């Protein structure tokens, strides 16, 4: 394993192709993050709803 690039500038530009690569990376991680957050938040909200609902019933 050998580090391929020589400077930070080169990592960003990648000989003119860097913009494509990094756009895809950004979109990938936003998609994954949105998926995970979406479901985690939904679960939290649902659990809260169920809890309040059962409390109302108990009272």
């Amino acid at each position: 394993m050998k580090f391929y690039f020589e400077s930070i500038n080169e990592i960003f530009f990648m000989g003119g192709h860097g913009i494509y690569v990094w756009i895809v990376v950004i979109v990938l991680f936003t998609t994954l993050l949105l998926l995970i957050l979406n479901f985690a938040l939904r679960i939290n909200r649902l659990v809260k709803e169920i809890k309040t609902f059962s409390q109302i019933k108990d009272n």
Partner: protein
Amino acid sequence: MLKKFFHQFASPKSYFRIATKIQNPFLLIFVLLYVFALAWGLLFTPEDYIQGNSYRIIFMHVPASFVSQILFLIMAFCSVIFLVWRLKLSIYVAKSIAPIGAAVTFFALFSGSIWGIPTWGTWWQWDARITSTLILLIMYLGLISLHSSFNNYEKADRFFAIIVLAGVINIPIIKKSVDWWSTLHQSASITLTDAPSIDPLMLAPLFLSIFSFFGLIMGIVILSSRYEILLREQSKSWVKSL
């Protein structure tokens, strides 16, 4: 004993318990592994002779398109189990895969079209594989809208399972489209039967990224199937006592 194990595991309650326990470590491991594989692929592999640096998109594009097809197959498998043995859990899992599959397929199309700009000079081409992947995306969206259009969960589940089984014919067509029709899209770099037509230096991170992306998506499937179970089993006593 095996039967008993399956019976216990297949109840939504015990599945939910196990899933809650393993979900976070599972996700964490595969996220780290995927980030490692990406870093390896993006920064530590040499440049491609023909495509230049833009080939590095392969480490995101190939796992996504692979997983988008595998997810549909898993969905079909779950649907068969549901239709034959009436296992509730399997249709919960199948249902929870659909939105994730749509997202992954969308990403596969998106990354492919971005990759197409520098290499093919066009971001979209009506060739067989791209079109059939678009069909896969439409199938996922159609399945989601089908399921949400019923207010009766039981009917919706059965329709969902039938349509998934009908849609499976698309998967071999996507897989084979590049071989059957000579098009712009390059043919598969890795096959089970032949030696891979790709340098071993790039192959190792590619395999690692496919594997870890699959694991990562499976982690998200666990997450969303937990949501689905909670949603459907709201009225059960074990959910209320959580």
